[in-house]
């Protein structure tokens, strides 16, 4: 298709929702392009959900298949739950991006490619023996092969940037074109570029010019005969922003610090996909946040235990390979009965696995991956925005019950984003702690006496006169905390620690069920699969199927009505991004003959596959 430029006003078509995927080389700036398009979309008031998909390698060889980086965005005029199963529009910046993503584009889908990148060298690197733009193999799609590089370089003629810098601005040209195609506001991107390149006027000018040129190209070229409009979604009133799971966790921890009145301490070692939390918290020292980048995962959680002893709200963040290393220290925290939060941003494994890809396979690890009887409460976040609330709730439980608490997120929630209705900070729960500050009248402080309701032990901080005491990993005598090898005492202490954690069930909400009435099948999920499961259920219901949905935030202890809910249904389906871990737990605990739907492909569930799995059980 040849592009000539005309100036006629073009018709605008209404769409209720669009799924776009930007794909290019790791160096092509696809994440930035996706981010900016998302911001424009958010400001327009669409509901949205994003899925960045990038390789662990920072810059794999240019043009190669492993070097392809993608960003998918789903936006609509109604509430949506996932980044979408398959894109309706694919932007492919080079042959490798086309090759790795084309299979996901449905027939009739829109394909926008950078024709300039389809040279012999790139085609060969992507494994093409003939040029797909010329061999007719793309006949089933609406193809726009745009010479993005050439047009960008031409548009920047006269601006003092190197040829390489000019060429690198092509992602802004593409963004401008897409902004026109979907009627996105452009002011946000212009001011973003102004901030980003404030110190390099020429680069700023190049990027803005490329962006505007792309927009104008869409407006005038004959290749694009219509543009599309997606109206704002009727979301709940309030102030919104985009948020990723990792940012929401960081904010939630700061909120928990404020609501507890305790200073926040984070011990962390860089690991994908958890590092973003460390980086975010390191920026907020004016909140009294201390971030400690430790020498290893063990020191990271060890320092957190030390800070907890000193009275901080202490946190350690990691992903599976680091969580394994922290296990012994978490066991120590169980014995010390000190509050501690451990955040596991799950990724595909075992071992190093696929560091940037999501999985839910650490559930049994955090529940049971310690020596001996070592009960730890476990919570899981269900959406990026939910990460905020779950962080506060996990802190509440840790502080109130003087226990380490695991909070599970995953690589999908960590990097994915959605509009987030800002919470009213004045309505956040009070999670302040009653510290022991007065020595007992009879003179002897007993660090292992227990509150009759919570079974929590007193928390007396170093610096408090008259309450000097020693705690440790050796078994302690009930009450005094002195070292004890007494058989009955060990049995008692083991049961007390278990009862304390089990008793939290009385202090958490019951499991809610979304049941339109009369459903015989319950779909039970947990954690980051909430969106795809809810979207799959919506599809089934739209097709007339009757199915109930419950989603667990609390994995240990389970909500007190969990067994009752499960027994209410003839059939229970448990979709998980693992080989059946929650499934195993509920079968063992509630003797329910549930079945699993399990995939470990390193990608989120597609709502269509879940809809099929549900349909098959109706």
């Amino acid at each position: 298709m040849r592009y000539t430029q005309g100036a006629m006003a073009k018709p605008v078509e209404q769409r209720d929702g669009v799924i776009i995927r930007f794909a290019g080389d790791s160096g092509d700036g696809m994440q930035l392009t996706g981010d900016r398009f998302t911001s424009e979309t958010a400001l327009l008031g669409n509901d949205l959900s994003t899925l960045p998909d990038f390789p662990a390698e920072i810059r794999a060889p240019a043009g190669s298949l492993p070097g392809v980086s993608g960003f998918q965005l789903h936006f609509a005029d109604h509430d949506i739950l996932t980044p979408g199963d398959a894109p309706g529009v694919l932007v492919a910046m080079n042959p490798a991006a086309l090759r790795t993503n084309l299979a996901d584009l449905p027939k009739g889908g829109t394909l926008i490619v950078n024709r300039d990148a389809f040279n012999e060298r790139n085609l060969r690197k992507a494994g093409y023996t003939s040029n797909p733009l010329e061999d007719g193999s793309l006949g089933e799609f609406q193809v726009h092969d745009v010479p993005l590089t050439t047009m960008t370089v031409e548009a920047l003629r006269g601006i003092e940037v190197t040829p390489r810098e000019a060429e690198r601005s092509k992602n802004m040209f593409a963004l401008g074109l897409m902004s026109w195609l979907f009627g996105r506001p452009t002011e946000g991107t212009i001011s973003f570029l102004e901030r980003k390149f404030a110190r390099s006027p020429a680069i700023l000018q190049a990027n803005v010019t490329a962006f505007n040129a792309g927009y104008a190209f869409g407006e005038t070229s004959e290749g694009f005969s219509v543009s599309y409009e997606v109206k704002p979604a009727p979301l709940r009133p309030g102030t919104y922003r985009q948020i990723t799971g990792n940012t929401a966790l960081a904010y939630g921890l700061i909120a928990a610090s404020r609501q507890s009145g305790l200073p926040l301490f984070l011990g962390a070692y860089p690991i994908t996909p958890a590092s973003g939390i460390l980086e975010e918290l390191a920026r907020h020292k004016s909140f009294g946040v201390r971030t400690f980048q430790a020498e290893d995962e063990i020191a990271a959680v060890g320092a957190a235990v030390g800070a907890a002893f000193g009275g901080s709200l202490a946190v350690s963040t990691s992903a599976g390979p680091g969580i394994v290393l922290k296990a012994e220290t978490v066991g120590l925290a169980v014995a010390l009965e000190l509050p501690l939060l451990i955040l596991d941003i799950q990724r595909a494994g075992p071992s190093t696995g696929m560091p940037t890809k999501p999985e839910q396979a650490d559930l049994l690890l955090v529940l049971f991956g310690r020596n001996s009887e070592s009960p730890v409460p476990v919570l899981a976040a269900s959406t990026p925005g939910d990460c905020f609330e779950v962080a506060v709730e996990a802190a509440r439980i840790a502080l109130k019950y003087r226990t380490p608490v695991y909070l599970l997120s995953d690589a999908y929630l960590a990097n994915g984003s959605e509009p987030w209705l800002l919470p009213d900070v004045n309505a956040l729960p009070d999670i302040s702690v009653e510290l022991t500050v007065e020595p007992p009248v009879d003179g002897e402080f007993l660090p292992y006496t227990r509150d009759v309701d919570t079974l929590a032990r007193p928390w007396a901080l170093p610096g408090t006169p008259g309450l000097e005491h020693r705690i440790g990993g050796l078994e302690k005598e009930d009450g005094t905390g002195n070292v004890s090898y007494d058989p009955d005492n060990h049995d008692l202490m083991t049961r007390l620690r278990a009862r304390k954690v089990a008793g939290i069930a009385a202090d958490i909400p019951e499991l809610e069920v979304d049941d339109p009435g009369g459903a015989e099948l319950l779909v039970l999920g947990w954690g980051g699969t909430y969106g795809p499961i809810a979207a799959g259920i919506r599809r089934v219901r739209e097709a007339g199927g009757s199915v109930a949905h419950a989603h667990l935030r609390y994995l240990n202890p389970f909500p007190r009505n969990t067994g009752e809910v499960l027994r209410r249904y003839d059939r229970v389906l448990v979709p998980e991004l693992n080989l059946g871990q929650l499934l195993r737990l509920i079968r063992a605990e509630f003797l329910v003959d549930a079945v699993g739907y399990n995939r470990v492909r390193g990608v989120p569930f597609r709502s269509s596959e879940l809809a099929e799995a549900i349909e098959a059980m109706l």
Partner: protein
Amino acid sequence: MTGGARGEGNGGGLIQLTAKDFKSDQEVRWCPGCGDYAILAAVQGFMPELGLPRERIVFISGIGCAARFPYYMQTYGMHSIHGRAPAIATGLSVSRPDLSVWVVTGDGDALSIGGNHLIHALRRNVNVKILLFNNQIYGLTKGQYSPTSEAGKVTKSTPMGSIDHPFNPVSIALGAEATFVARTIDTDKKHLTAVLRKAALHRGTAFVEIYQNCNIYNDGAFDAVREQRENRILLEHGMPIRFGADGERGVAQRADGTCELVEVAAVGEGALLRHDEHAVEPALAFALSRLAHTPHGPTPIGVFRDVERPVYDEVMQAQLDAATAQRGHGDLAALIGSGDTWQIG
């Protein structure tokens, strides 16, 4: 549980504590004759000199015989897990700069399983005092060779002799950028106390290796310096380094920078190395540490190095203060509403 310390700050110098105030009610359970008893007595005897009430002092240990130490101190304390005490103490110290934090560790705890935490605490210069009880053996697990055991050592796990080359703890500390490094002996209460005093005064991490006799599994390991006092090369700042029964021997520096033992009569006093614990570069201190890789002959005792460098805890606090001065106290509503926001309804 009462005592002079209760409720008093350390501002007025009014605290009149004695060694007895630092004895907890727990029965000490080391083997009779263990060097740990002498160290415990010396530390308890020194504690009143800190001028701090007991509640401001914290002892943190890992695992091993030495690690039982906190139970016997009437201060705050934590007996943690193997090798991790420096990491735990780091978290406590940086989050509570008002506390005096001490780590008690052993050669296996600090130099084997916890080696990584030790070196990183030292390079960061966290404000903790690390007392390494070196007995060159695993005692609590009943007698396997340790990372400081001499090569060839026959133990239960090395029936034909250890094939490991041992660590020299002082060399390790110096190589790890430590700002305070010293060595002393369990039974020499006066020297031990003097070293503790200097360690306590030091701002940042202080590393003190204490030769400690395990009379059950490695009796006599340090006799060459513990019993034969003429082998103690006492390091004193600014003084020519001399030792021997009548100071007849000394330490001189070779052209290549290494140290050698010399007869003072042969080389003359002017040829002796003058000790400088404040030397900016640790090269001389390192050369001194190499005089005795394991203590089988003349061995340096005392402060090898004592220099100033920014203290991790203080720099972290300064960053918090600077951020707050720049932006004011954090405002949660402003934080979560930062960036691009939009209104619905």
